[in-house]
C-alpha cells in the first residue's frame, strides 16, 4: 500500500486547485518523502503537482526496504530449517545403532562397539533440577520485584535493581565454580541435617555421600534465574496503571491488598512470561550443572545424595571423547531438550491466550 497515500495526496491538490497549490502545497507538506517525485515530473508546476499525475516508481527506497525486511524475515525460517535438517540427519543413524531403548535405558555408552544410551535419566534430571530451581526462585524473585516497584524508596530501588541486573551478567561458569568450591559445603551440611531429621521423606533419604546433588545444582540454578525473573516482573509491576492502584486504595485497600487486587492480576501475563524465560534458561543451563551435579544415570527423586544429571550437562561432559555415534546420540538428546522447551513455551502461550479477553482490554 506504499503508493496509495501518494496518489490521493496529489489528486487532492491537482486539477482544479492548481493556483492554490503554488502557495500552499498540501501534497508536499503531508508527504514530505514524496516531494522529489513531483519536482522531477516533466512540466510540473509545483510540489502539489499540476497537470498529469506522476507515474509510480518501478524501483525506489520503498521497495528496496520491503525486500530487505522480507529477506531478513525469511532468513529466520531458512536457519531454523537448516538446523532441523542437520540435527535429524546426525541423530537418526545413532538412534538406529542404539542397542537399547532410547527412552527407558538408564545409561550413556554410545561410544562402545554396541552402543547403549537412553535419554530417560537425563530428561528427568533436566526437568527436576529446573522445576526445583523455579520453585525456589519464583517466590523470591516476585518478592524482590514487588519490593523494588512498590515498597522501596526510589534510590534504594534503583541501586538494588542495578545489582540484580549485575547478577544476570555473571557468566555461568563462574556460578558453577562458586557452587562447586564454596556453596558445596553449606549445602552438604544442610543435606546431612535434612537426612538426619527427614529421612522418612524419600526426597531426603539415602545413606550418602551428600553434596554434589540435585539440591546443589538446583540452588545454583535458582540464583542464576533469579535476576531474569526479578527484573522482568519488576518492569511489569511498574507498568500497572496508577489509576487502578488508586482505585484499590480508594476502596480502602492496604498496600498488600492493593498489590493483590490491582498489580498482581494486571501483571499476570508478564509474570508467566518472566517465569517461562527463567525456565528456559534453567532447562538449557550447561556448564554450571555439569560442575555441580554428581553425574549419575538413574531416575531418582532423592535430592540430597550425590547424583543427578541433565541433558545439557551431559553434552558438555561427554562431547570431548565422543565418536561419530556418540555425537549423533548427543545431538538426539539435544533434540529432546528442544522438544521439552517447546512444550514449555506452548503451554505458557496457551495460558496467556486463555485470559486474553481480560488482558487485551487492560491497555
Amino acid at each position, binding site marked *: 500500500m506504499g503508493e496509495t497515500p501518494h496518489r490521493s495526496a496529489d489528486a487532492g491538490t491537482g486539477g482544479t486547485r492548481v493556483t492554490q497549490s503554488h502557495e500552499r502545497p498540501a501534497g508536499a507538506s503531508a508527504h514530505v518523502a514524496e516531494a522529489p517525485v513531483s519536482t522531477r515530473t516533466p512540466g510540473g508546476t509545483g510540489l502539489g503537482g499540476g497537470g498529469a499525475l506522476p507515474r509510480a516508481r518501478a524501483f525506489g527506497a520503498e521497495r528496496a526496504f520491503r525486500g530487505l525486511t522480507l529477506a531478513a524475515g525469511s532468513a529466520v525460517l531458512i536457519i531454523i530449517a537448516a538446523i532441523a535438517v542437520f540435527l535429524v540427519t546426525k541423530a537418526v543413524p545413532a538412534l538406529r545403532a542404539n542397542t537399547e531403548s532410547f527412552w527407558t535405558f538408564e545409561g550413556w555408552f554410545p561410544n562402545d562397539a554396541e552402543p547403549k544410551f537412553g535419554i530417560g535419566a537425563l530428561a528427568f534430571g533436566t526437568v527436576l533440577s529446573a522445576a526445583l530451581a523455579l520453585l525456589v526462585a519464583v517466590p523470591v524473585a516476585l518478592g524482590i520485584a514487588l519490593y523494588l516497584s512498590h515498597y522501596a524508596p526510589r534510590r534504594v530501588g534503583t541501586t538494588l535493581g542495578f545489582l540484580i541486573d549485575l547478577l544476570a551478567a555473571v557468566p555461568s561458569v563462574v556460578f558453577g565454580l562458586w557452587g562447586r568450591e564454596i556453596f558445596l559445603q553449606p549445602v552438604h551440611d544442610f543435606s546431612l541435617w535434612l537426612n538426619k531429621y527427614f529421612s522418612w521423606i524419600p526426597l531426603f533419604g539415602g545413606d550418602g555421600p551428600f553434596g554434589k546433588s540435585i539440591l546443589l545444582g538446583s540452588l545454583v540454578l535458582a540464583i542464576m534465574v533469579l535476576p531474569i525473573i526479578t527484573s522482568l516482573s519488576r518492569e511489569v509491576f511498574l507498568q500497572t496503571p496508577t489509576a487502578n492502584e*488508586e*482505585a484499590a486504595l480508594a476502596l*480502602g485497600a492496604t498496600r498488600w491488598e492493593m498489590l493483590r487486587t490491582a498489580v498482581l*492480576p494486571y501483571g499476570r501475563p508478564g509474570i508467566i512470561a518472566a517465569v517461562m524465560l527463567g525456565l528456559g534458561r534453567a532447562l538449557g543451563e550447561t556448564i554450571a550443572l555439569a560442575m555441580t551435579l554428581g553425574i549419575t544415570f538413574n531416575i531418582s527423586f532423592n535430592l540430597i545424595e550425590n547424583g543427578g544429571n541433565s541433558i545439557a550437562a551431559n553434552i558438555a561432559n561427554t562431547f570431548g571423547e565422543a565418536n561419530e555415534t556418540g555425537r549423533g546420540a548427543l545431538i538426539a538428546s539435544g533434540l529432546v531438550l528442544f522438544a521439552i522447551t517447546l512444550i514449555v513455551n506452548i503451554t505458557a502461550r496457551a495460558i496467556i491466550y486463555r485470559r486474553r479477553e*481480560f*488482558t487485551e*482490554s*487492560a491497555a
Partner: protein
Amino acid sequence: MAKRIEATNVTAYYGSFKAIENINLTVEPKTVTALIGPSGCGKSTFLRSINRMHEVLPGARVEGSLTIDDQDIYDRDVDVTAVRRMIGMVFQRPNPFPTMSIYENVVAGLRLNGVRRKSILDEAAEKALRSANLWDEVKDRLGKPGAGLSGGQQQRLCIARTIAVEPQVVLMDEPCSALDPISTLAIEDLMFQLKDKFTIIIVTHNMQQAARVSDRTAFFSIEKTGDPGRLIEYDNTQKIFSNPSQKKTEDYITGRFG
C-alpha cells in the same frame, strides 16, 4: 448514612510546593457540593485530602484538621483504610480493574472488607448496580470484563463499585470530563438519586454542571502560577451563579477569567 465534613485550615503540599492554603469549609450531610475553579487552583488536591488519597503520592502531606462528624481523619491513630472505606472516590477517568469481570469489579470493595459469602455479594452487587442505573444494561453479562463496557458505563460501574461498600461520603473528581453528553446526563441523574443516601462532593470544570447538580458551590482560585490555591467563596449554588459576593467569582463564572 451521611455525615458532615468540616475542614479547618487545611493546607496541602507536594514536597515543598504548597498546593492549597487554609481551606475552611463545612459540607452538610446529604447534599451535593461542587468545587469549581481554574486549572491548578487545588480543588482536586482538596478533594483528595478529604479521603487521605493526597498522601499516596510521594512527598505529599496535609496540615490542618478535617473532621467527619467530629472525628479528625488525620488523627494519629486513625486507620487510613477505614477512612477510605467511609469516604469513597470516583476518578476522572473510568478505572475499572481490567482483569476483573463486571461482577468482580462491583464486589471488589466488599471482598477487601472480608465479605466472602456468595449470597451477600450477589445481593450487594445487584443493589449497587441498580443504584448506579447500570443493572439493566449489564445483568446478562456480569461475567464479562468490566473494561469492555463503554466509557459512560465504565464510569457508572466505578460508581457502583464505590457505593457497594456503602460509604458515608462519595467524592467525585471530574467524573464526566472523559464522557460524552448523554453519558454525562446519566451520571448527573444518578447524582440526584444518590443524594438521598450519600454526601457528595464533586470537582468539575463544567460550570453548567455545577449549577445543575449541586446545592452548594465552592469557588477556588490562585493569584498566579506557583501560588497556593485558596477558597474564594462558598455559598448556595443559586447565590454563586446569580449574585456572587466576590468580584473574582463573578469574573470566573461570567467567563471573564480562567
